[in-house]
């Protein structure tokens, strides 16, 4: 069972920077950009453009 937080700890968490969210934002953003660039430059363009 988790130990209850003191009011000081609770306030610290509430007012500190959300590091987990930044990490998630970074991972999703970079992951999607890499995946898109791979599909575009690694798959789509080498197959020959259609005009």
């Amino acid at each position, binding site marked *: 069972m988790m130990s209850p937080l003191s009011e000081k700890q609770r306030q610290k968490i509430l007012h500190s920077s959300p590091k987990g969210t930044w990490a998630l*934002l970074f991972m999703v953003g970079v992951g999607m950009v890499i995946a898109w660039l791979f599909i575009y430059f690694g798959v789509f363009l080498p197959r*020959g453009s*259609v*005009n």
Partner: protein
Amino acid sequence: MHIDPLEKKWIVVSLGMTGLFIGVILITSFIHGINAPSNVETIDSARLHLNKEFAEDNLGVEQQPDGTITVRMVAARYGFFPRDIKVPADTKIKFRWVSFDVLHGVHIPMTNMSTMILPGFVAQVTTAFPKPGRYPVLCNEYCGRGHDHMWSNITVIAKQHWQKTQQDLAVDKSKGDDGDE
């Protein structure tokens, strides 16, 4: 309207990625000369057999004097005609598709070749196939009960083999012409 600061960050990242992708597409399109197919040309679908270009004898692959290839194909329930064609790899190929009856679509898997074929119009698409191999040509617009059986084949031949094939054909033709005289 109140937006949570974290929501704003996600919105900024999403819009930033969208902007990046559009920018990359525009720049590479400019560099490689890519543009959306834009040929508009009408044709009487009910009289294709009377049309010089799409008469049965003129369908298939034709090599132009500049080395480019023109392929004329007719889509009709339920097949693409001619059923088997051969084209060279790494060569600009101009496809001219027409429909004999209803709306069809053409898709060649593992390539970027895909377009709709509307009755009454010539669907013209220019592309090149970098990888030799045998590819199916599939209809991807529902056109009737036989739609899932509507397909044909395209064989992409390595460029050096293609040139040899063309030379052999030219030799055969000249021998045939000599024999006729």
